[in-house]
Structure formats: C-alpha cells, structure tokens
C-alpha cells in the first residue's frame, strides 16, 4: 500500500511521506475473578503527508483498499490551508538502521488459552475474602512501514503484552484500590507475574490499617508510580514543542545545572524488549537515545521534523503519527534515575516498597498514587493533589495507610536536592525510574 501511495503522490505533489500500520489485539478480562469476555481487534490504516506549494498537509484512511487519488486530494486540500514550511524529508540512511529487539515469538504465538490460563492464575493468586480482583491481559502484534519520496524506508514488527491487576476492598464507606501492571514486548514469565502479584500484595497488606496523616513540610518517598505528578512538568518542559512556543521554563536553561547532580533523564527508543522501542520514528528518522538531562544539567529537548525545522535544529527522531492527523512529538522510553545503565534488569527479584528509602525517615509519607495528576497548570511545576494511595512512615517503618491528606510542592524546587534514589528501579509503562526521597514536601490533612 505504502509504495502505491508514495508513487502516486510523487506524480502530483513536491514530496510526501507515509506510514502504514496494522495491529491485531487479543484481550481477555476477568471481573471479580471470573473470565467474562475475550476479544480481538483488527485495525489497519495509512497516514499520508504531502508537501505542495511550500506547505504540508495530511490525510488518513482506515479503508481496506484505499482510494489513493482521493487520499492525495484530501492531503492537498489540507496543505492549501497550511502554513509555509520547507520540510526536509530524511534521505535514505547511509548506514543500516539500528537493530532493536521489538518482536518476541513467545508473545506473538501465545494462544488464547495460554493467555486465559495466565489471567486465571494471577486472579487466583490475588483472591482474598472481601476483595474484588480484576485482571486484564492484552497482546498486540503490529507491523509498521514508513517511507518517503526521498527514498527512505523502514519497517519493523512489534509485539506487546500488557498484564494488569487490581484488588478493590470496600469496607463500609472506605474504598481501597491497589493495582499494578507490566507491559513488555515479551510474554511475561512466571517470575515477572510473581513480582506483579507481590507488588500488589506488599502494598495491600499495610493499607488495611488506616492511620492519621502527618502535617507540615515533611520527607516524602514517591514510588515510581507516585512520581508521575513530579515528573509530568519536566516531560512537558523538555518537549521541543513547548520550547518553541515559549512556554517551557527550561527553554533558556540548556547547559545550566537545574536539578540535583545525580538526576539524569534519557529517552531511549532502542531499549531492548520495550513496547515503545523502534529502529526509526514515524518520519523515517533513525532512532538513537537522547540524553535530555545529565548530571542535573539540561542538555537538549526532543523534536519531530516540523518542530525541529521551525526551531532551526534537527529532529531527534521523536515523531509519532496515528492514522489520522499529523506527526507529533512523543517520548518513547523515558529513563529517569541516577544510573541509566542499570536499566533493563526487570524486577524479577522482589523489590522492597520504597526501595530502602524509608529507613531513615522519622515522620513522613510514602506516596504511591495521587488523584488528579495532569489537571491544572502543570507546566509551571507546582502541584497539589489529594493522595490516592499513601502510607505514613514513622521511625523507618510503614505504620498504615493515610486518607484525607493532600501533598503539594513545586517539581523544580523539589528536584534541586533529591534526598536519595531507591533501589527499586522498574519500568512502569513507558517510564523507568526508582523511588525518590524528596524533602520538604508540604502535607496537609483535613
């Protein structure tokens, strides 16, 4: 399909690039421990971008045998309204594309019965009196082809398996929900499923006791899941789009030591076995890791082709496009921590909640989930959220779950001096990080 589209486009416009993607998803869902549904989803589509008259336009279709002429017409109509833009389409790579592990036979060939058995096993393991256990599994097999009229081409196949589980316990008007999930390009093995179950068990047990929250400016351990509120402003500020628009607080800080010297943030599209890894991006730019913050110093931002041209820099290979709409900047695998080289070791060995960081805390909190992350004015760095799941820490031990408390702070202030990094680094979706101990986080209670 992609050759047909590009060949036809070449005759009618000044340049073009296109993406074809096909995905097949198989999913099962267990509700209250019972398998209730199994499903498949088949989806394929083409996204075309054309360069015409010094402008760009896009169009997409999910039709099985697309009307190529109509697709090009729509892309040209889109370009007529577009802004002037001289988009440099990448030439064919002189060296072979980087090789990266994105396909696992074990995942692609796993039968529905095998997935069902895996889901049932996890649900049985987590079952307990008075609790509702929900488990879902999804396996995706995908194929992507990208190309442009300058002759660049790339294709790859991907597998991805996502397993998630939640335990809900309702006692009177108290609702407790503990969940976790693993996402990987490979089928999770017994050790990984065991680690998933343990992660839920380890957070469920101490949550059964409810204790009063502390108050004041306190040391707080943010688990990899709890860190979302602290890292979200940075993720926005490190995007070339925000920088170009003038709304990134980091825009003029390249080369400056903005964060604790031990903090590094890298986006790595070549991380082996991760579902967001790929040898090239959706605009034919070969993948390479981008060190965004190293040793606390801001080094660079992530760009797609269009944003890079406008910012007079090069694409970092972070263009991502769907079937509809134009390519946009997106991170792949964001690695946060002191030692990015330690990444990849999946947490097959059981991890301690808090990664050893609670030992030295006299009175504080361990935060695993906050409510309302992403609402409000994220880019400025300030956040204020009620806790979804958090524990009180006293004299180096967890004493129970706290409710009716809120934590607030400013990500930029808090990350200037990091108390310590935990030993519990792990992948959570597309982000790898350990727990972080941050000092002077304001904790309010009702």
């Amino acid at each position, binding site marked *: 399909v992609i050759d047909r589209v590009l060949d036809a486009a070449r005759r009618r416009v000044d340049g073009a690039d296109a993406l074809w993607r096909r995905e097949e998803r198989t999913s099962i869902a267990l509700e209250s421990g019972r398998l209730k549904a*199994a499903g498949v989803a088949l989806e394929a589509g083409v996204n075309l971008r054309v360069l015409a008259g010094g402008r760009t336009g896009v169009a997409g279709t999910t039709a099985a045998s697309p009307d190529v002429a109509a697709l090009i017409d729509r892309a040209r109509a889109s370009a007529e*309204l577009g802004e002037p833009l001289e988009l440099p389409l990448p030439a064919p790579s002189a060296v072979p594309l980087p090789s990266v592990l994105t396909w696992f036979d074990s995942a692609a060939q796993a039968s529905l019965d095998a997935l069902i058995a895996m889901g049932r096993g996890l649900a049985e393991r987590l079952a307990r009196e008075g609790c509702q256990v929900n488990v879902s599994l999804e396996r995706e097999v995908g194929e992507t082809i990208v190309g442009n009229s300058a002759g660049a081409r790339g294709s790859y196949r991907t597998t991805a398996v996502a397993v998630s589980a939640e335990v809900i316990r309702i006692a009177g008007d108290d609702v407790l929900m503990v969940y976790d999930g693993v996402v990987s390009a490979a089928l999770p093995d017994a050790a990984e499923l065991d680690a998933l179950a343990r992660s839920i068990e380890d957070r469920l047990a101490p949550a059964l006791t409810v204790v009063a929250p502390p108050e004041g400016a306190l040391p707080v351990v943010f688990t990899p899941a709890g860190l979302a509120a602290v890292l979200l402003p940075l993720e926005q500020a490190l995007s070339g789009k925000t920088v170009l628009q003038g709304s990134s607080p980091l825009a003029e800080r390249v080369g400056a030591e903005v964060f604790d010297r031990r903090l590094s943030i890298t986006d790595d599209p070549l991380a082996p076995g991760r579902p967001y890894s790929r040898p090239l991006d959706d605009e034919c730019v070969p993948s390479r890791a981008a060190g965004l913050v190293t040793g606390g110093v801001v080094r660079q931002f992530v760009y797609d082709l269009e944003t890079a041209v406008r910012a007079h820099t090069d694409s970092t290979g972070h263009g991502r496009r769907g079937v509809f709409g134009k390519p946009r900047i997106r991170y792949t695998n964001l690695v946060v921590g002191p030692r990015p080289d330690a990444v990849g070791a999946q947490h097959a060995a059981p991890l301690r909640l808090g990664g050893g960081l609670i030992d030295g805390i006299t009175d504080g909190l361990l935060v695993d*989930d906050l409510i309302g992350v992403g609402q409000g*004015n994220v880019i*400025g760095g300030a956040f204020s959220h009620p806790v979804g799941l958090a524990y009180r820490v006293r004299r180096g031990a967890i004493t129970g779950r706290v409710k009716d408390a809120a934590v607030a702070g400013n990500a930029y202030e808090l990350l200037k001096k990091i108390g310590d990094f935990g030993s519990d680094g792990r992948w959570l979706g597309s982000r790898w990080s350990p727990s972080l101990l941050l000092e002077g986080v*304001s904790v309010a209670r*009702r």
Partner: protein
Amino acid sequence: LKDRLSAALKASGADYTEIRLERTWSSAVSFRGRRLESATVSEDQGGFVRALNRGCGWGIASFTSLDELPRMVARAHELSRAVRLDEPIRLADTVPQVADAALDLDGDVRGIPLGEKKRLLEAYNGAMLAVSDRVVDTQTNYQDEVSEVWYVNSEGAALYQLRPEVVVSGSAIARRDGTIEKGLESIGQRRGWRSVHDFTERFRAAAQRAVDLLDAPRVKGGTYPVILDNELAGVFVHEAFGHLSEADFVYENPQARAMMTLGRGFGKPVLNVGDNGAAPGLRGTLPYDDEGTPTQDTPLIREGVLVGRLHSRETAAKLGERPTGNARALSFRHAPIVRMTNTYIAPGPKTVSFQDLIADVKLGVYACGAFGGQTMLENFSFTAAWGHMIRDGQVAELVKDVVLAGNLFQTLDRIDHIAGDFTWNEMGGGCGKGGQFPLPVTEGAPHVRVEEALVGGDVPGGAGAGGA
C-alpha cells in the same frame, strides 16, 4: 448495507449476536500560537460484533475492514465459546427497537469548506492572542463529525442513527518570568456548524483570565465554605457521584452493593440528582444507546435518598432492575459499557439566588470553571479554573490554584444550599473510563454551596510556589 447485516446475523451460530457498523466523517483544525497546526478531513469506518452463548462469556471482535464482517461474526462466536462461565451472563429483556433516528444536524458540517472552519477558529484564536503580550501561547481546536451508526441484534432490533458533534476549544498561556497561568474555554454541542458562532467574547475572556491570574495570589490551603459555580458543580456531580452510580461498579461486588444500597441517605433533602440521555440537543444526548435501548431520564438521588443507578442490559439483569439506556461505546473499536449521558443536579427553589448562597459566608471560596476532575472511588480532586475569596457575604479578590479535595460521602452531606439558577454545561472534552476517552457527555447544575470543604493551595511551611 442492511441486507448485509441481516445476512451476517443469520449466519451467526451464537445464541445472541449484535453488530454495530459505523461510518464517521470528521474534520479538524488546530492553531498553536499564531500558527496553523493542521487542517484535515478524515473518514473512519469499522465494525463491532459481540456474541454470547449459554454457559459462556462474551466474544468480541472489532475491525476496520468491512469485508471481514462474516469472518468476524464467526470469530466472536468462537471467542465466546472459549470463555466458559459457571454463572451465566443474562441480558435484561427489552423490546427490540426498529427505527431510523437522525438527530438535527443544524448546519451539516460536511457541506462547509474547511477554509471557513479555519477562519472561524482563527478569529477565536486571534481574540485570545490580542488580549495582551503576556499571552505567550495559545492552543485552539475545532473539531466536527457526523457519525452514521447501524445497529442490529439477533432479537430483532434494527436501528440507524445519525449523530452530529462539534467542539471548539482553546487555551491561553500567560507568562511573566517564572509564573505561568492558563485560561480555558470550550464549547461542545451535539449539533452542527450553526451552533458554534458568536463565542469570540468567551475566548477573549478566558485569555484575560490567564493574564489576571498572573497577579492573583494562590488560595491559602484550608477548610472553607465553598460555593461551586454551575460548571464546576456539574463536573463535580459527574465525577464524584456519577461514576459510583454506574452499575458495573457494584454488580459484581457485594461490598460495593452494600455501600450503594438503594434507599440509603445521600446528602441532605435539598439534593436531587439524575442522568438524562433523552434531554434534547445536549452533548450526551442519544435516542438509543449502543445496545439499542432507548435513553431516558433516570433519577439517581431524590431528596437526599439514593433511588436509582445507570444500567446496561447485563448489569440490569444481574441486579433485577431495568435497563436505563446507558450502555455506550466510544466507537466501533470498543464494547458498550455503563456510562453517563447528561448528568445533573436539579435546581433548588427559583427564589434562591447566588447572592442568597453567599450572604452569610464570612470567609469562603467561590470556585469557578473546571480544569479537570478525577475520582478514585470515594475520594476526589477537582481543579477549578479560577476562584474568588468570599468575604463578609461579598465576592472578593481573584485567587488561583483552587484544588478541591475530599471524600464523596462527606462532601455530598455538606451540600446545604442549592440555587435555582440551573444551566447545562456546553463544554467539549469528555469522559474517560475503561480506556474509552473522550466520550461525549455533559452535566448541568445550579450554584451549589458546600458548607465545608478542603481546598488545597499554599500550605504554610511547605515548599511553595517558585519556578526553575
């Protein structure tokens, strides 16, 4: 197409089969700052099959290629048979509906040139940028669609629905040194081209608010009497109460069922809440849901007592109640699940005004507009777009970072006054659940007073505001 659908149904070996086909025409324009980001027209189509067999669970197949329909019907049947269940899934009885239901297109967006849509959005975007040179960035979007949906099931239902939708939204970022503030405006209608004009003043006001917030202090964290404006009160009832009234939250969980027993007290007698998918012309309005059940006005809380919940056919059968027309799917890519439509807090007496709500408030917060809200079961967090302090019965200075946090049961119990000034929200955006986002819904409410609520903000002694 109807013949293809009935042929595919006939060929199904399953005890129950339903098929939904969709064809959606849409266009979108977006600006970022002064620059047009993109202007596109898209056509999306696909199908969804769900099959159920005795002693088995659901088998589900979705696909973009309609040629696959017969194969996908067989696949759904096969998948259903692979899911063995001791306790069968039952569907509540409904009368199979046969109808063509076309909502008013109010200016068919398919006939309007893309260039005109660009000009409309450019005007709104320009109005935001013109407010001040402190407005450093804007993001505005125009999006419309017309969706044709065919639904058939093996009980004899056959429906054709035409569903329009149009959304214009914009955010303005104001900046001075390290201080960055945001103003938001959004208009969403289940209508067409004619319904999105004449909003320039609202976009300008949103950008002005972002600029004004640069000088506003953060609200001081603490417990206050809080008055919610119509928009925030609507978002509140959707997020904090509505999701618990979705029966799929309780139907498989005895403890949740105990918590949400019909007849339990929910708030004071002033509180009346419902969900009305049949209200004309609103964003969550549909003649039929995605199981073919007609929509209706469902009372949920009547005078402070829980009286109802929202159902699909499956949850209704399980709880021995009646389907309410709330089984909705985002698109052919998804199975229908229990969702809200247009959720509302009913107005208090016509004689009660906003002024009456604040008259006896010595120190309080007037929380306005919504940046967002999230509920984690009984706990919630809402971020107001802006707020004002209330001092000695008067609306006083503008404040920012007004985040409301609390426990649903306690907060509903503390709603002590409801004004008579009901309005429906007409925002874009939508609701997310089970990976299906954004589903068009709306909310409606009058001004509502909560006698005591926790407001986040500057906490003395903490690492407060500051920039990089």
